[in-house]
């Protein structure tokens, strides 16, 4: 049994999401190989080769993979698929774009966002925004799977010595073209891998008020997130959104500020180890999942928290 993991990367660097898929693959068992499809992607391939427990890195280095267009990457993966029992990727927006296309090309019913491996054919996955957990068993010979990153620890990123082999590119399908990106530039850690996340909701009232939670986040070395309500209201960009339809996070500490706790938001953060809620409405559902709840006006409490952290030696 050999498992192929599709690397998440920026060509020069390997994305940390790859490490979660490696852990899920280890739970299934067998030889582990990683595909790095990119352009000028030796940097990413090199990092992948150091991941503990991986045997071989396959590198498809060609212009048509530069921006991970689904049509081109899926064509490549489907060509390779027969050599593998399982094809895995962590469920990033990139993998969610590519993997179902691979599955359809191989006539496979994909298994989305698994949170647990029972055996090589049986997996647990959340449905209904995490309000139910389904145990499913596949009858497909090749299993195409996306992995919920927060459900699997990151694999050790060093200690391995996989071989690196170049493979042939599959060509440009000519169906789509990359034009550009507007990526949020931030000095803060990535939302999905941060150890601490501070999120703001509709209670923030305006994007202009977000600096007060950003100040707290920076003292703690935390990422900043938001509820869908805050994103829809235009307070912050879409990539801040934590929730079933945004990012799913599970940090050691999640601080929800002015967030009522809609089901769709809870689905995105309720696996956090410790949850803090600051809200002036003591009936807010967020308090039902919070380990520590503070009923207070956030415009008073958050600056106080900032000062208190400062007093305790948190300076960022």
């Amino acid at each position: 049994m050999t498992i192929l993991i599709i690397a998440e990367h920026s060509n020069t660097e390997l994305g940390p999401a790859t490490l979660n898929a490696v852990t899920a693959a280890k739970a299934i068992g067998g030889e582990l190989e990683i595909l790095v499809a990119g352009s000028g992607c030796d940097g990413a391939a090199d990092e992948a080769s150091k991941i503990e427990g991986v045997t071989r890195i396959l590198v498809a280095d060609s212009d048509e993979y530069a921006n991970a267009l689904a049509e081109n990457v899926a064509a490549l993966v489907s060509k390779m698929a027969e050599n593998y029992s399982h094809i895995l990727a962590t469920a990033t927006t990139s993998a969610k774009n590519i993997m179902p296309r691979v599955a359809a090309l191989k006539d496979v019913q994909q298994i989305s966002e698994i949170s647990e491996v029972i055996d090589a054919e049986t997996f647990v996955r959340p449905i209904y925004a995490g309000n139910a957990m389904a145990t499913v068993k596949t009858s497909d010979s090749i299993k195409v799977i996306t992995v919920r990153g927060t459900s699997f620890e990151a694999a050790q990123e060093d200690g391995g010595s996989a071989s690196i082999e170049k493979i042939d590119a599959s060509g440009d399908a000519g169906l789509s073209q990359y034009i550009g990106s507007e990526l949020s530039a931030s000095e803060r850690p990535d939302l999905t891998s941060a150890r601490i996340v501070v999120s703001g909701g509709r209670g923030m009232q305006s994007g202009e008020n977000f600096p007060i939670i950003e100040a707290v986040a920076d003292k703690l070395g935390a990422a900043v997130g938001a509820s869908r309500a805050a994103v829809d209201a235009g307070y912050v960009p879409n990539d801040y959104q934590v929730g079933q339809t945004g990012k799913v996070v599970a940090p050691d500490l999640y601080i929800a500020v002015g967030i009522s706790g809609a089901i769709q938001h809870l689905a995105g953060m309720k696996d956090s180890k410790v949850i803090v809620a600051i809200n002036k409405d003591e009936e807010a559902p967020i308090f039902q999942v919070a380990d520590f709840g503070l009923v207070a006006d956030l415009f008073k409490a958050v600056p106080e928290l900032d000062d208190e952290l400062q007093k305790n030696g948190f300076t960022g």
Partner: protein
Amino acid sequence: MKILVPVKRVIDYNVKVRVKADQTGVELANVKMSMNPFDEISVEQAIRLKEAGICEEIIAVSVGVQQCQETIRTALAMGADRGIHVLHDGDIEPLAVAKILKELANKEGPTLIIVGKQAIDDDSNQTGQMLAALLGWGQATFVSDIQVEGEQVKATREVDGGLETISVKLPAVITTDLRLNEPRYASLPNIMKAKKKPIDQTSPADLGVDPSIRLEILKVAEPPQRESGVKVEDVADLVDKLRNTAKVI
């Protein structure tokens, strides 16, 4: 151009979902059902393209039980022109739905197929991408803006780090994200008019598609519940608890 819009009948997003006691699934009896919210966004987008003079006809498709016709009627009341109901009792998976949609696309010849990025019941996020693959078309997934420009559609996609813009050759499959638009409510006159709009009925067998299940559901269980925590007095108490009780900072 013609636009095909698949619409799925799901448990209404405001309903608290309950797992059945025998763990075979979730309770569907006497539960309010509605159109999948992402599909409402798809219907709305198709209507806007029609209002802009880019699209001539919108066809709403639903696969499932007889009551899916109500979901199609909702799309017709919003502004779709006609419906196709693919009658199927029992569960059906994204791959089979994509195969059905492929057959319908080959019959109807749409230039765009606008699909919700995921259904809020099984949360698969697969059908649009699978359909694009089966048709050999390009795809723009999770879009928050689209512009039809001649033989191309320019799409802004919501990706992990922010936004990405791509251009896809037509015909194409689009999957919609939340911020693409705000769906309209159907007006009473339009609800009345929708009753006269045609809905054709067909079946997976008529279309030559095998709807067999590939993923057997062994069990559906409640997620682990969090134990309720404590209220803290003030900010100093909170910081103390985080440092000394939880030891997370």
